[in-house]
């Protein structure tokens, strides 16, 4: 009986350890190098979306979006589920607007498998 209790204790300890490892705290430093905050670009120009994501430990992917906040139009979206500790992105998108618009570049990072996220965004202005 003593032996059974011992094995049970070890199994519980390992199980709790694994659960803890799976849900351990993680964080990410997101840097958006381009566009810079409140940058101004002209209609039909190519917008550079450039930056880095550095995690405290391995990250579970990220999503990059470009949204026209003036019209709520999603102009660009890209995502990856590659698991890495750090990412660099550099995407381009030609922007076409009818009126002066505010665009938002947003990065959403999956910090762990349980769905914890970190986000960062910058906005810029497009002049027709």
């Amino acid at each position, binding site marked *: 009986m003593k032996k059974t209790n011992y094995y049970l204790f070890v199994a519980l300890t390992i199980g709790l350890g694994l659960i803890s490892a799976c849900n351990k705290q993680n964080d990410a430093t997101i840097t958006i190098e381009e566009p810079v905050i409140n940058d101004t670009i002209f209609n039909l120009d190519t917008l550079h979306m450039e930056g880095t994501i550095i995690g405290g430990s391995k990250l579970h992917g990220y999503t990059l979006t470009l949204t026209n906040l003036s019209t709520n139009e999603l102009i660009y979206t890209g995502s990856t589920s590659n698991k890495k500790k750090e*990412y660099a992105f550099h995407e381009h998108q030609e922007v076409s607007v009818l009126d002066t618009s505010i665009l938002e570049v947003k990065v959403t990072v999956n910090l762990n498998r349980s769905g914890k996220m970190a986000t960062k965004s910058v906005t810029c202005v497009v002049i027709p």
Partner: protein
Amino acid sequence: MKYTLIFGLALWAFPSKSCDICGGVSGNASIGLFASTQFHMVGIKSNIRTYRSYLSGIIHSHERVYQQELTGRWQLTPRWQLFATIPFQIGVQKRDLGREVISGLGDPSLIVNHVFLHHKDSSGSTKHFLSAGIGIKTPLGRMAPATSLIRNLYPGTGAWNISGLLTHTMRLNGHFSIQQEGIVTYKLADKNGFRYGNTYSIASTLIRNNKLGMGRMIVGLGLKAEFFEPSAELGVPMSVNNNQGYDFSGQISLNYLTNRWLWSCHLMQPILQNFNNGSMKQGSNVSLSVSYLIKKSKTN
């Protein structure tokens, strides 16, 4: 006996061109070590080059450039040779968030080579060989649109290149010889005013030539240094992402020559490099080629 005529002439007859990604696109189509032979040749060559691009020290993309070339060599006279190559290229860039594939005809190139010195010993083996050539790369391949941000992935540059080549081969002893080759490539601007920087390269290769089976195995082991000047727009050198840099690479070449065929495998691996202030690195460069040898006519 006929093989002894090419003694000591290791050979990548159509070695790799410099990289497109780093702006080389140099048309550094060296004439290699077959220069002292008298064969006409036609062949095909498959080549893969790899690159990695970095942003703030983090890998941002992987590039692979696949190239298939149709190659030819014609011995006009004992002193004059003509080399030609027509490439087809597929460039692939893979990023976390996307993938680009650009394919098309590359820029054909032509080299005219003149043999200044060709000393042989009593057995007909080459002791000293010296030649100089001039090459052009024609802007007939698919070039990038003026606004493209992945210009280096395109198979053509849209510009003429003019190269000067100097090749020297010297026999060291029974099985070994050494070859030096220097290439300078002057690049002109494309129709939009973009101009890749000039390139300079020098290579030294130790060659061993042995009889093996029905043919000869020719193995080359060498070092190559390349320097790239900055690219320019409308005559003004670019300050960033200008493709400026250098690399020092090790090279291994395995060649098997039979009566009618030449089989070659060539590996180039950068040892030390710096392009775009470290934001681009070349990886391995591997090529395989096979050429059919056409015996020259007796009038040559």
